[in-house]
Protein backbone atom coordinates (compact mmCIF):
# COMPACT_ATOMS: atom_id res chain seq x y z
CA UNK A 1 0.00 0.00 0.00
CA UNK A 2 2.71 2.43 1.06
CA UNK A 3 4.80 1.48 -1.94
CA UNK A 4 1.81 2.07 -4.18
CA UNK A 5 1.34 5.54 -2.72
CA UNK A 6 5.02 6.30 -3.27
CA UNK A 7 4.83 5.22 -6.89
CA UNK A 8 1.70 7.30 -7.37
CA UNK A 9 3.39 10.30 -5.82
CA UNK A 10 6.44 9.85 -8.00
CA UNK A 11 4.10 9.86 -10.98
CA UNK A 12 2.51 13.03 -9.65
CA UNK A 13 5.93 14.63 -9.37
CA UNK A 14 6.63 13.63 -12.94
CA UNK A 15 3.39 15.19 -14.16
CA UNK A 16 4.35 18.45 -12.55
CA UNK A 17 8.09 18.53 -13.10
CA UNK A 18 8.07 16.83 -16.47
CA UNK A 19 6.64 19.78 -18.37
CA UNK A 20 9.36 22.08 -17.00
CA UNK A 21 12.04 19.62 -18.05
CA UNK A 22 10.44 19.32 -21.44
CA UNK A 23 10.39 23.08 -21.75
CA UNK A 24 14.08 23.34 -20.91
CA UNK A 25 14.99 20.44 -23.19
CA UNK A 26 13.05 21.96 -26.09
CA UNK A 27 14.78 25.28 -25.65
CA UNK A 28 18.15 23.65 -26.31
CA UNK A 29 17.05 21.86 -29.44
CA UNK A 30 17.28 22.97 -33.03
CA UNK A 31 14.28 23.47 -35.27
CA UNK A 32 15.42 20.52 -37.29
CA UNK A 33 15.41 18.26 -34.26
CA UNK A 34 11.96 19.46 -33.31
CA UNK A 35 10.63 18.52 -36.72
CA UNK A 36 12.48 15.24 -37.05
CA UNK A 37 12.36 13.70 -33.59
CA UNK A 38 10.04 15.75 -31.47
CA UNK A 39 9.52 13.10 -28.81
CA UNK A 40 13.16 12.52 -28.01
CA UNK A 41 13.70 14.31 -24.71
CA UNK A 42 17.41 15.02 -24.82
CA UNK A 43 18.73 17.56 -27.28
CA UNK A 44 21.54 16.18 -29.45
CA UNK A 45 23.70 18.96 -28.08
CA UNK A 46 23.05 22.00 -25.97
CA UNK A 47 22.49 24.79 -28.41
CA UNK A 48 21.97 28.28 -27.17
CA UNK A 49 20.68 29.38 -30.56
CA UNK A 50 17.13 29.71 -29.33
CA UNK A 51 18.23 31.92 -26.45
CA UNK A 52 20.39 33.97 -28.77
CA UNK A 53 17.37 34.42 -31.01
CA UNK A 54 15.14 35.41 -28.10
CA UNK A 55 17.60 37.96 -26.84
CA UNK A 56 18.18 39.41 -30.28
CA UNK A 57 14.51 39.44 -31.27
CA UNK A 58 13.31 41.04 -28.07
CA UNK A 59 14.80 43.63 -25.76
CA UNK A 60 14.57 41.02 -23.04
CA UNK A 61 16.42 43.04 -20.44
CA UNK A 62 14.19 46.02 -20.98
CA UNK A 63 11.09 43.85 -20.62
CA UNK A 64 12.47 42.12 -17.56
CA UNK A 65 13.36 45.44 -16.02
CA UNK A 66 9.85 46.73 -16.78
CA UNK A 67 8.32 43.67 -15.18
CA UNK A 68 10.50 43.94 -12.12
CA UNK A 69 10.00 47.68 -11.71
CA UNK A 70 6.26 47.28 -12.12
CA UNK A 71 5.96 44.36 -9.72
CA UNK A 72 8.24 46.01 -7.17
CA UNK A 73 6.41 49.32 -7.28
CA UNK A 74 3.10 47.58 -6.89
CA UNK A 75 4.39 45.51 -3.99
CA UNK A 76 5.98 48.47 -2.22
CA UNK A 77 2.96 50.70 -2.73
CA UNK A 78 0.58 48.02 -1.55
CA UNK A 79 2.58 47.55 1.61
CA UNK A 80 3.15 51.26 2.13
CA UNK A 81 -0.52 52.13 1.72
CA UNK A 82 -1.90 49.10 3.53
CA UNK A 83 0.02 50.07 6.67
CA UNK A 84 -1.72 53.36 7.49
CA UNK A 85 -5.06 52.05 6.28
CA UNK A 86 -4.70 48.83 8.24
CA UNK A 87 -3.60 50.80 11.28
CA UNK A 88 -6.58 53.12 11.14
CA UNK A 89 -8.97 50.23 10.64
CA UNK A 90 -7.44 48.12 13.38
CA UNK A 91 -6.49 50.61 16.02
CA UNK A 92 -8.16 53.98 15.76
CA UNK A 93 -11.66 54.99 16.64
CA UNK A 94 -13.40 57.36 14.27
CA UNK A 95 -16.75 57.95 12.70
CA UNK A 96 -17.30 55.96 9.54
CA UNK A 97 -14.92 53.17 10.41
CA UNK A 98 -17.43 50.47 9.63
CA UNK A 99 -18.28 52.03 6.30
CA UNK A 100 -14.60 52.25 5.38
CA UNK A 101 -14.05 48.64 6.33
CA UNK A 102 -17.03 47.47 4.33
CA UNK A 103 -15.76 49.44 1.33
CA UNK A 104 -12.40 47.72 1.51
CA UNK A 105 -14.01 44.32 1.87
CA UNK A 106 -16.38 45.01 -1.02
CA UNK A 107 -13.44 45.62 -3.33
CA UNK A 108 -12.03 42.30 -2.27
CA UNK A 109 -14.64 40.62 -4.41
CA UNK A 110 -14.27 42.80 -7.49
CA UNK A 111 -11.36 41.60 -9.62
CA UNK A 112 -9.73 43.71 -12.34
CA UNK A 113 -11.41 41.41 -14.85
CA UNK A 114 -14.67 43.12 -13.95
CA UNK A 115 -13.41 46.66 -14.10
CA UNK A 116 -10.94 46.60 -16.93
CA UNK A 117 -13.21 47.93 -19.65
CA UNK A 118 -14.22 51.12 -17.84
CA UNK A 119 -10.74 51.56 -16.37
CA UNK A 120 -9.29 51.30 -19.84
CA UNK A 121 -11.71 53.84 -21.20
CA UNK A 122 -10.96 56.09 -18.21
CA UNK A 123 -7.18 55.89 -18.43
CA UNK A 124 -7.08 56.07 -22.18
CA UNK A 125 -8.04 59.69 -22.70
CA UNK A 126 -5.75 60.72 -19.85
CA UNK A 127 -2.80 59.63 -21.95
CA UNK A 128 -1.83 57.08 -19.34
CA UNK A 129 -1.74 54.02 -21.53
CA UNK A 130 1.86 52.97 -22.08
CA UNK A 131 2.96 54.51 -18.80
CA UNK A 132 4.17 52.85 -15.65
CA UNK A 133 1.40 54.75 -13.86
CA UNK A 134 -1.26 52.87 -15.78
CA UNK A 135 0.43 49.58 -14.95
CA UNK A 136 0.94 50.31 -11.27
CA UNK A 137 -1.64 52.69 -9.86
CA UNK A 138 -4.72 50.51 -10.38
CA UNK A 139 -2.99 47.93 -8.19
CA UNK A 140 -1.41 50.34 -5.71
CA UNK A 141 -3.95 49.26 -3.16
CA UNK A 142 -4.70 45.68 -2.41
CA UNK A 143 -7.96 45.29 -0.58
CA UNK A 144 -6.84 41.91 0.58
CA UNK A 145 -3.44 43.23 1.72
CA UNK A 146 -5.15 45.99 3.65
CA UNK A 147 -7.31 43.41 5.32
CA UNK A 148 -4.30 41.22 6.17
CA UNK A 149 -2.38 44.14 7.64
CA UNK A 150 -5.39 45.13 9.67
CA UNK A 151 -5.64 41.61 11.03
CA UNK A 152 -1.97 41.62 11.93
CA UNK A 153 -2.28 45.01 13.61
CA UNK A 154 -5.18 43.82 15.73
CA UNK A 155 -2.79 41.59 17.63
CA UNK A 156 -0.35 44.40 18.39
CA UNK A 157 -0.92 45.63 21.95
CA UNK A 158 -2.25 49.18 22.25
CA UNK A 159 0.35 49.85 24.91
CA UNK A 160 3.08 49.77 22.32
CA UNK A 161 1.44 52.49 20.29
CA UNK A 162 0.80 54.51 23.42
CA UNK A 163 4.40 54.08 24.51
CA UNK A 164 5.54 55.32 21.13
CA UNK A 165 3.22 58.30 21.31
CA UNK A 166 4.63 59.17 24.73
CA UNK A 167 8.13 58.70 23.40
CA UNK A 168 7.34 61.49 21.03
CA UNK A 169 6.67 59.56 17.85
CA UNK A 170 4.19 60.97 15.35
CA UNK A 171 1.61 58.71 13.77
CA UNK A 172 3.62 58.18 10.57
CA UNK A 173 6.65 57.20 12.61
CA UNK A 174 4.53 54.83 14.62
CA UNK A 175 3.15 53.27 11.45
CA UNK A 176 6.35 52.91 9.48
CA UNK A 177 8.94 52.54 12.21
CA UNK A 178 7.18 50.81 15.04
CA UNK A 179 4.32 48.85 13.53
CA UNK A 180 5.75 47.96 10.14
CA UNK A 181 8.58 45.90 11.66
CA UNK A 182 6.04 44.18 13.89
CA UNK A 183 3.86 43.06 11.04
CA UNK A 184 6.82 42.33 8.82
CA UNK A 185 5.94 38.68 8.22
CA UNK A 186 2.57 39.81 6.90
CA UNK A 187 4.17 42.54 4.80
CA UNK A 188 6.78 40.20 3.41
CA UNK A 189 4.20 37.60 2.51
CA UNK A 190 2.03 40.24 0.95
CA UNK A 191 4.88 41.75 -1.03
CA UNK A 192 6.11 38.41 -2.30
CA UNK A 193 2.70 37.27 -3.36
CA UNK A 194 1.95 40.52 -5.07
CA UNK A 195 5.36 40.55 -6.74
CA UNK A 196 5.00 37.07 -8.12
CA UNK A 197 1.46 37.76 -9.28
CA UNK A 198 2.19 41.02 -11.03
CA UNK A 199 5.53 39.97 -12.44
CA UNK A 200 3.63 37.20 -14.19
CA UNK A 201 0.57 39.23 -15.03
CA UNK A 202 -0.45 39.18 -18.65
CA UNK A 203 -3.96 40.56 -18.60
CA UNK A 204 -3.33 44.14 -17.58
CA UNK A 205 -0.03 44.90 -19.37
CA UNK A 206 -1.49 43.35 -22.51
CA UNK A 207 -4.15 46.01 -22.57
CA UNK A 208 -2.14 48.89 -21.20
CA UNK A 209 0.97 48.64 -23.33
CA UNK A 210 1.64 48.98 -27.02
CA UNK A 211 5.20 50.25 -26.79
CA UNK A 212 8.42 48.36 -26.43
CA UNK A 213 9.76 50.69 -23.78
CA UNK A 214 7.00 49.70 -21.38
CA UNK A 215 6.06 46.20 -22.48
CA UNK A 216 6.46 43.53 -19.84
CA UNK A 217 8.01 40.13 -20.15
CA UNK A 218 4.92 37.87 -20.20
CA UNK A 219 3.33 39.95 -22.95
CA UNK A 220 6.53 39.80 -24.96
CA UNK A 221 7.02 36.08 -24.50
CA UNK A 222 3.46 35.42 -25.62
CA UNK A 223 4.33 37.38 -28.77
CA UNK A 224 7.21 35.00 -29.48
CA UNK A 225 4.65 32.60 -30.78
CA UNK A 226 4.66 34.31 -34.14
CA UNK A 227 1.88 32.92 -36.16
CA UNK A 228 1.60 32.51 -39.86
CA UNK A 229 4.33 30.06 -40.56
CA UNK A 230 5.30 27.26 -38.24
CA UNK A 231 5.71 28.19 -34.62
CA UNK A 232 9.34 27.83 -33.70
CA UNK A 233 8.78 26.12 -30.42
CA UNK A 234 12.40 26.01 -29.33
CA UNK A 235 12.40 29.80 -29.36
CA UNK A 236 9.07 30.06 -27.59
CA UNK A 237 10.29 27.64 -24.94
CA UNK A 238 13.55 29.56 -24.54
CA UNK A 239 11.46 32.66 -23.93
CA UNK A 240 9.37 30.65 -21.53
CA UNK A 241 12.46 29.59 -19.63
CA UNK A 242 13.54 33.22 -19.38
CA UNK A 243 10.08 34.13 -18.12
CA UNK A 244 9.73 31.25 -15.68
CA UNK A 245 13.13 30.80 -14.15
CA UNK A 246 13.28 33.95 -11.99
CA UNK A 247 9.91 33.09 -10.48
CA UNK A 248 10.87 29.48 -9.88
CA UNK A 249 14.13 30.57 -8.24
CA UNK A 250 12.27 33.08 -6.10
CA UNK A 251 9.82 30.34 -5.24
CA UNK A 252 12.56 27.97 -4.17
CA UNK A 253 14.23 30.66 -2.07
CA UNK A 254 11.11 32.07 -0.46
CA UNK A 255 8.80 29.11 -0.53
CA UNK A 256 7.80 29.39 3.09
CA UNK A 257 6.77 33.01 2.88
CA UNK A 258 4.87 32.51 -0.34
CA UNK A 259 3.06 29.59 1.22
CA UNK A 260 2.20 31.73 4.17
CA UNK A 261 0.80 34.41 1.91
CA UNK A 262 -1.35 31.89 0.12
CA UNK A 263 -2.65 30.20 3.23
CA UNK A 264 -3.08 33.46 5.16
CA UNK A 265 -6.21 34.09 3.21
CA UNK A 266 -7.71 30.76 4.04
CA UNK A 267 -6.93 30.99 7.70
CA UNK A 268 -7.87 34.59 8.30
Amino acid at each position, binding site marked *: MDRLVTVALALVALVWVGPYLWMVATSFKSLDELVRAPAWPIPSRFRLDAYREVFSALPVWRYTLNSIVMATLIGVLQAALALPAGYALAKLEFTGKRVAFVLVMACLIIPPQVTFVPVFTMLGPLGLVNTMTALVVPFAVSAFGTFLVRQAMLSV*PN*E*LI*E*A*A*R*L*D*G*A*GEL*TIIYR*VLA*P*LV*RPTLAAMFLFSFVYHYSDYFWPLMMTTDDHIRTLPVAVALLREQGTGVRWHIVMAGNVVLTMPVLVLFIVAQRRILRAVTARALS
Partner: protein
Amino acid sequence: MTTRLVLEGLSKRFTGRGAVHTEALKKLDLEVRDGELLVLVGPSGCGKSTVLRLIAGLEEPSEGRVLLDGEDLVRVPPQARDVAMVFQGYALYPHLTAAENMAFPLEMRGVSKVEREQRVREAAAIVGLGDKLERLPSELSGGERQRVAMGRAIVRRPKLFLFDEPLSNLDAKLRAELRVELVQLVRRLGATALYVTHDQGEAMTMADRIAVMRGGELMQLDTPRTIYERPANAFVAGFVGTPSMNMVSVADSPRVAGLTLGVRRGATCGFRPESVRFVKDGADTANPTEGVRLEGRVVLVEPQGAETFVHVDGEGFVVRARVEGFGGPELGSRVVARVGAAELHWFDESGRRVEPLA
Protein backbone atom coordinates in the same frame (compact mmCIF):
# COMPACT_ATOMS: atom_id res chain seq x y z
CA MET B 1 13.48 72.66 39.03
CA THR B 2 10.46 71.56 40.88
CA THR B 3 7.55 69.62 39.56
CA ARG B 4 3.99 69.88 40.69
CA LEU B 5 1.11 67.99 39.20
CA VAL B 6 -2.39 69.06 40.04
CA LEU B 7 -5.54 67.32 38.91
CA GLU B 8 -8.64 69.48 39.22
CA GLY B 9 -12.13 68.06 39.04
CA LEU B 10 -10.99 65.43 36.59
CA SER B 11 -13.84 63.32 35.16
CA LYS B 12 -13.92 60.72 32.47
CA ARG B 13 -16.96 59.10 30.96
CA PHE B 14 -16.73 56.37 28.36
CA THR B 15 -19.52 55.92 25.89
CA GLY B 16 -20.26 52.30 25.31
CA ARG B 17 -22.79 50.51 23.16
CA GLY B 18 -26.17 52.18 22.96
CA ALA B 19 -24.74 55.42 24.32
CA VAL B 20 -24.49 53.99 27.82
CA HIS B 21 -22.01 56.04 29.75
CA THR B 22 -19.61 54.52 32.22
CA GLU B 23 -18.12 56.93 34.64
CA ALA B 24 -14.53 55.89 35.04
CA LEU B 25 -13.57 58.94 37.03
CA LYS B 26 -15.66 61.34 39.08
CA LYS B 27 -14.36 64.83 39.74
CA LEU B 28 -10.99 63.78 41.02
CA ASP B 29 -8.78 66.33 42.75
CA LEU B 30 -5.23 65.26 43.43
CA GLU B 31 -1.87 66.84 43.87
CA VAL B 32 1.51 65.21 43.39
CA ARG B 33 4.25 67.15 45.08
CA ASP B 34 7.72 67.66 43.81
CA GLY B 35 9.96 64.65 44.28
CA GLU B 36 7.12 62.59 45.62
CA LEU B 37 6.29 59.00 44.77
CA LEU B 38 2.55 58.85 44.95
CA VAL B 39 0.93 55.46 44.58
CA LEU B 40 -2.58 55.09 43.24
CA VAL B 41 -4.06 51.89 44.51
CA GLY B 42 -7.44 50.27 44.24
CA PRO B 43 -9.23 47.24 42.85
CA SER B 44 -9.47 46.84 39.11
CA GLY B 45 -11.90 49.22 37.51
CA CYS B 46 -11.41 51.86 40.17
CA GLY B 47 -10.18 54.36 37.61
CA LYS B 48 -6.56 54.46 38.66
CA SER B 49 -5.24 53.59 35.21
CA THR B 50 -7.57 56.14 33.70
CA VAL B 51 -5.92 58.78 35.83
CA LEU B 52 -2.53 57.87 34.41
CA ARG B 53 -3.81 57.80 30.84
CA LEU B 54 -5.42 61.21 31.28
CA ILE B 55 -2.18 62.62 32.60
CA ALA B 56 -0.22 61.03 29.75
CA GLY B 57 -2.69 62.36 27.21
CA LEU B 58 -3.72 58.92 26.00
CA GLU B 59 -7.28 59.81 26.90
CA GLU B 60 -9.08 63.12 26.90
CA PRO B 61 -10.89 64.05 30.12
CA SER B 62 -14.61 64.72 30.00
CA GLU B 63 -14.11 67.50 32.48
CA GLY B 64 -11.41 68.95 34.61
CA ARG B 65 -7.86 70.01 34.22
CA VAL B 66 -4.44 68.43 34.34
CA LEU B 67 -1.94 71.04 35.48
CA LEU B 68 1.74 70.29 35.28
CA ASP B 69 3.64 73.17 36.82
CA GLY B 70 0.61 75.33 36.28
CA GLU B 71 0.26 74.53 32.59
CA ASP B 72 -2.97 72.89 31.51
CA LEU B 73 -2.05 69.79 29.52
CA VAL B 74 -5.50 68.81 28.33
CA ARG B 75 -5.02 70.16 24.79
CA VAL B 76 -1.39 69.04 24.55
CA PRO B 77 -0.80 65.81 22.58
CA PRO B 78 1.05 63.04 24.40
CA GLN B 79 4.11 63.57 22.23
CA ALA B 80 4.47 67.11 23.55
CA ARG B 81 3.91 66.38 27.25
CA ASP B 82 7.04 66.05 29.26
CA VAL B 83 5.79 62.87 30.82
CA ALA B 84 7.23 59.35 30.63
CA MET B 85 5.30 56.19 31.25
CA VAL B 86 6.29 52.66 32.09
CA PHE B 87 3.67 50.19 30.99
CA GLN B 88 2.51 46.98 32.55
CA GLY B 89 3.55 44.95 29.48
CA TYR B 90 6.69 47.11 29.18
CA ALA B 91 5.66 48.06 25.62
CA LEU B 92 9.17 47.59 24.32
CA TYR B 93 9.67 47.76 20.56
CA PRO B 94 10.37 44.13 19.76
CA HIS B 95 12.47 44.87 16.68
CA LEU B 96 14.81 47.26 18.46
CA THR B 97 17.64 46.36 20.81
CA ALA B 98 17.60 47.47 24.42
CA ALA B 99 19.83 50.41 23.53
CA GLU B 100 17.70 51.34 20.54
CA ASN B 101 14.57 51.11 22.63
CA MET B 102 16.05 53.50 25.13
CA ALA B 103 17.34 55.83 22.45
CA PHE B 104 14.00 55.95 20.64
CA PRO B 105 12.38 58.79 22.62
CA LEU B 106 15.58 60.83 22.28
CA GLU B 107 15.70 60.20 18.55
CA MET B 108 12.10 61.30 18.27
CA ARG B 109 13.03 64.52 20.01
CA GLY B 110 15.91 65.12 17.66
CA VAL B 111 18.70 64.55 20.15
CA SER B 112 22.03 64.06 18.38
CA LYS B 113 23.44 60.60 17.97
CA VAL B 114 26.43 61.27 20.19
CA GLU B 115 24.31 62.60 23.00
CA ARG B 116 21.85 59.77 22.57
CA GLU B 117 24.54 57.19 23.08
CA GLN B 118 25.87 59.04 26.08
CA ARG B 119 22.49 59.30 27.74
CA VAL B 120 21.57 55.71 26.96
CA ARG B 121 24.81 54.55 28.57
CA GLU B 122 24.04 56.61 31.68
CA ALA B 123 20.52 55.35 31.90
CA ALA B 124 21.65 51.79 31.38
CA ALA B 125 24.10 52.17 34.21
CA ILE B 126 21.38 53.57 36.46
CA VAL B 127 18.98 50.72 35.79
CA GLY B 128 21.81 48.17 35.85
CA LEU B 129 21.65 46.91 32.30
CA GLY B 130 25.27 47.42 31.29
CA ASP B 131 26.13 44.44 29.12
CA LYS B 132 22.72 43.63 27.74
CA LEU B 133 22.28 46.74 25.67
CA GLU B 134 22.59 45.06 22.29
CA ARG B 135 20.01 42.43 22.96
CA LEU B 136 16.51 42.34 21.60
CA PRO B 137 13.67 42.35 24.12
CA SER B 138 12.92 38.74 23.26
CA GLU B 139 16.43 37.83 24.39
CA LEU B 140 15.96 39.44 27.82
CA SER B 141 14.36 38.12 30.99
CA GLY B 142 11.24 39.71 32.42
CA GLY B 143 13.22 41.69 34.95
CA GLU B 144 15.64 42.90 32.34
CA ARG B 145 12.83 44.02 30.07
CA GLN B 146 11.43 45.91 33.00
CA ARG B 147 14.77 47.64 33.39
CA VAL B 148 14.83 48.57 29.73
CA ALA B 149 11.37 50.05 30.07
CA MET B 150 12.58 52.01 33.08
CA GLY B 151 15.66 53.09 31.20
CA ARG B 152 13.56 54.28 28.28
CA ALA B 153 11.56 56.43 30.68
CA ILE B 154 14.45 57.97 32.56
CA VAL B 155 16.62 58.60 29.55
CA ARG B 156 14.29 61.42 28.61
CA ARG B 157 14.58 63.13 31.98
CA PRO B 158 10.89 63.91 32.02
CA LYS B 159 9.19 66.12 34.57
CA LEU B 160 6.94 63.32 35.62
CA PHE B 161 7.10 59.54 35.65
CA LEU B 162 4.00 57.44 35.32
CA PHE B 163 4.10 53.78 36.25
CA ASP B 164 1.19 51.59 35.21
CA GLU B 165 1.48 48.41 37.27
CA PRO B 166 5.01 47.93 36.01
CA LEU B 167 5.76 44.93 38.21
CA SER B 168 2.59 42.92 37.93
CA ASN B 169 3.89 40.69 35.12
CA LEU B 170 6.78 39.44 37.25
CA ASP B 171 6.91 36.60 39.69
CA ALA B 172 6.60 37.38 43.40
CA LYS B 173 10.26 37.18 44.31
CA LEU B 174 11.44 39.38 41.47
CA ARG B 175 8.62 41.79 42.15
CA ALA B 176 9.75 42.23 45.72
CA GLU B 177 13.33 42.82 44.64
CA LEU B 178 12.50 45.19 41.86
CA ARG B 179 10.19 47.34 43.86
CA VAL B 180 12.98 48.10 46.26
CA GLU B 181 15.26 48.99 43.40
CA LEU B 182 12.57 51.08 41.83
CA VAL B 183 12.01 53.09 44.98
CA GLN B 184 15.71 53.64 45.37
CA LEU B 185 15.99 54.67 41.77
CA VAL B 186 13.15 57.16 41.98
CA ARG B 187 14.62 58.59 45.19
CA ARG B 188 18.05 58.84 43.64
CA LEU B 189 16.70 60.64 40.61
CA GLY B 190 14.63 62.85 42.84
CA ALA B 191 11.87 62.14 40.43
CA THR B 192 8.25 63.02 40.76
CA ALA B 193 6.22 59.92 40.05
CA LEU B 194 2.75 58.57 39.99
CA TYR B 195 2.59 54.83 40.41
CA VAL B 196 -0.48 52.72 39.83
CA THR B 197 -0.93 49.28 41.33
CA HIS B 198 -3.71 47.03 42.51
CA ASP B 199 -1.37 45.53 45.09
CA GLN B 200 -1.79 47.34 48.39
CA GLY B 201 1.38 45.71 49.74
CA GLU B 202 3.35 47.29 46.92
CA ALA B 203 1.66 50.58 47.64
CA MET B 204 2.53 50.41 51.32
CA THR B 205 6.18 49.63 50.76
CA MET B 206 6.84 52.08 47.97
CA ALA B 207 4.72 55.14 48.46
CA ASP B 208 5.45 58.47 49.98
CA ARG B 209 1.74 58.93 49.92
CA ILE B 210 -0.99 56.56 48.87
CA ALA B 211 -4.20 57.45 47.10
CA VAL B 212 -6.78 54.73 47.51
CA MET B 213 -9.42 54.75 44.82
CA ARG B 214 -12.70 53.03 44.28
CA GLY B 215 -15.33 53.38 41.61
CA GLY B 216 -13.70 56.43 40.11
CA GLU B 217 -13.48 58.26 43.40
CA LEU B 218 -10.67 59.03 45.77
CA MET B 219 -11.21 57.23 49.07
CA GLN B 220 -8.22 58.50 50.99
CA LEU B 221 -4.96 60.23 50.26
CA ASP B 222 -2.32 60.05 52.94
CA THR B 223 0.93 58.48 54.06
CA PRO B 224 1.04 54.71 54.23
CA ARG B 225 1.09 54.83 57.97
CA THR B 226 -1.97 56.98 58.34
CA ILE B 227 -3.78 54.93 55.75
CA TYR B 228 -3.03 51.80 57.72
CA GLU B 229 -3.57 53.13 61.16
CA ARG B 230 -6.43 55.49 60.55
CA PRO B 231 -8.27 54.34 57.42
CA ALA B 232 -10.75 57.01 56.46
CA ASN B 233 -13.48 54.56 55.71
CA ALA B 234 -14.44 50.92 55.81
CA PHE B 235 -13.31 50.38 52.21
CA VAL B 236 -9.77 51.60 52.83
CA ALA B 237 -9.67 49.71 56.07
CA GLY B 238 -10.60 46.51 54.32
CA PHE B 239 -8.41 47.09 51.32
CA VAL B 240 -5.14 47.82 53.07
CA GLY B 241 -3.34 45.14 55.10
CA THR B 242 -2.91 41.38 54.72
CA PRO B 243 -4.78 39.51 55.90
CA SER B 244 -7.37 42.19 55.71
CA MET B 245 -9.11 43.76 58.68
CA ASN B 246 -11.86 41.79 60.42
CA MET B 247 -15.14 43.63 60.03
CA VAL B 248 -18.18 43.07 62.21
CA SER B 249 -21.50 44.66 61.48
CA VAL B 250 -23.17 45.73 64.71
CA ALA B 251 -26.52 44.74 63.34
CA ASP B 252 -25.25 41.23 62.71
CA SER B 253 -23.31 40.74 65.93
CA PRO B 254 -26.20 39.46 68.09
CA ARG B 255 -26.59 36.55 65.73
CA VAL B 256 -22.98 35.53 66.17
CA ALA B 257 -22.99 33.22 69.17
CA GLY B 258 -19.32 33.40 70.17
CA LEU B 259 -18.88 37.16 69.73
CA THR B 260 -19.33 39.82 72.33
CA LEU B 261 -19.10 43.49 71.40
CA GLY B 262 -18.47 46.01 74.14
CA VAL B 263 -19.28 49.71 73.81
CA ARG B 264 -20.67 50.49 70.35
CA ARG B 265 -19.67 53.66 68.58
CA GLY B 266 -20.71 53.03 65.01
CA ALA B 267 -22.37 50.70 62.55
CA THR B 268 -19.36 48.61 61.77
CA CYS B 269 -16.44 47.63 63.90
CA GLY B 270 -13.10 46.64 62.48
CA PHE B 271 -9.95 45.24 63.98
CA ARG B 272 -6.72 44.10 62.43
CA PRO B 273 -5.56 40.48 62.84
CA GLU B 274 -2.54 41.59 64.83
CA SER B 275 -4.86 43.19 67.38
CA VAL B 276 -6.36 39.86 68.28
CA ARG B 277 -4.86 38.31 71.37
CA PHE B 278 -5.57 34.82 72.63
CA VAL B 279 -6.21 34.44 76.35
CA LYS B 280 -6.04 31.32 78.40
CA ASP B 281 -9.47 30.02 79.20
CA GLY B 282 -10.48 31.32 82.59
CA ALA B 283 -7.75 33.92 82.62
CA ASP B 284 -10.01 36.35 80.77
CA THR B 285 -10.10 39.11 83.30
CA ALA B 286 -10.73 42.14 81.17
CA ASN B 287 -13.98 44.05 81.29
CA PRO B 288 -16.33 42.29 78.93
CA THR B 289 -17.95 45.59 78.02
CA GLU B 290 -14.72 46.90 76.55
CA GLY B 291 -13.39 45.80 73.18
CA VAL B 292 -14.31 42.51 71.58
CA ARG B 293 -14.45 39.05 73.02
CA LEU B 294 -14.59 35.99 70.82
CA GLU B 295 -15.03 32.39 71.72
CA GLY B 296 -14.63 29.75 69.07
CA ARG B 297 -12.78 26.91 67.47
CA VAL B 298 -9.55 27.17 65.44
CA VAL B 299 -10.49 26.11 61.92
CA LEU B 300 -7.32 27.01 60.01
CA VAL B 301 -3.70 27.65 60.88
CA GLU B 302 -1.40 29.27 58.27
CA PRO B 303 2.19 29.35 59.47
CA GLN B 304 4.30 31.89 57.50
CA GLY B 305 7.50 31.47 59.39
CA ALA B 306 7.85 34.78 61.18
CA GLU B 307 4.17 34.82 61.90
CA THR B 308 1.16 32.56 61.86
CA PHE B 309 -2.39 33.39 60.84
CA VAL B 310 -5.06 31.68 62.85
CA HIS B 311 -8.69 31.53 61.73
CA VAL B 312 -11.18 31.22 64.54
CA ASP B 313 -14.80 30.34 63.89
CA GLY B 314 -17.07 31.96 66.43
CA GLU B 315 -20.13 30.11 65.17
CA GLY B 316 -21.15 32.31 62.29
CA PHE B 317 -18.21 34.64 62.09
CA VAL B 318 -14.58 33.84 61.24
CA VAL B 319 -11.90 36.05 62.72
CA ARG B 320 -8.37 36.19 61.37
CA ALA B 321 -5.70 36.58 63.98
CA ARG B 322 -1.95 37.00 63.75
CA VAL B 323 0.56 35.57 66.24
CA GLU B 324 4.35 35.75 66.32
CA GLY B 325 6.40 32.78 65.11
CA PHE B 326 4.89 29.34 65.24
CA GLY B 327 3.07 29.93 68.52
CA GLY B 328 -0.65 30.15 68.97
CA PRO B 329 -3.45 27.71 69.48
CA GLU B 330 -3.64 24.36 67.78
CA LEU B 331 -6.01 23.44 64.98
CA GLY B 332 -9.32 22.29 66.37
CA SER B 333 -8.79 23.68 69.85
CA ARG B 334 -11.37 25.94 71.49
CA VAL B 335 -10.01 29.39 72.23
CA VAL B 336 -10.99 32.76 73.64
CA ALA B 337 -9.64 35.86 71.94
CA ARG B 338 -9.87 39.54 72.80
CA VAL B 339 -9.30 42.86 71.08
CA GLY B 340 -8.69 45.96 73.14
CA ALA B 341 -11.11 48.85 72.75
CA ALA B 342 -8.32 51.21 71.64
CA GLU B 343 -7.55 48.93 68.75
CA LEU B 344 -11.02 49.01 67.30
CA HIS B 345 -11.90 51.07 64.24
CA TRP B 346 -15.46 52.28 64.06
CA PHE B 347 -17.35 53.23 60.88
CA ASP B 348 -20.80 54.75 60.51
CA GLU B 349 -23.60 53.55 58.24
CA SER B 350 -22.05 55.22 55.20
CA GLY B 351 -18.74 53.55 56.02
CA ARG B 352 -17.07 56.77 57.18
CA ARG B 353 -14.63 56.50 60.05
CA VAL B 354 -15.94 57.46 63.47
CA GLU B 355 -13.13 59.09 65.42
CA PRO B 356 -12.82 57.98 69.05
CA LEU B 357 -13.89 60.58 71.55
CA ALA B 358 -11.00 62.70 72.60
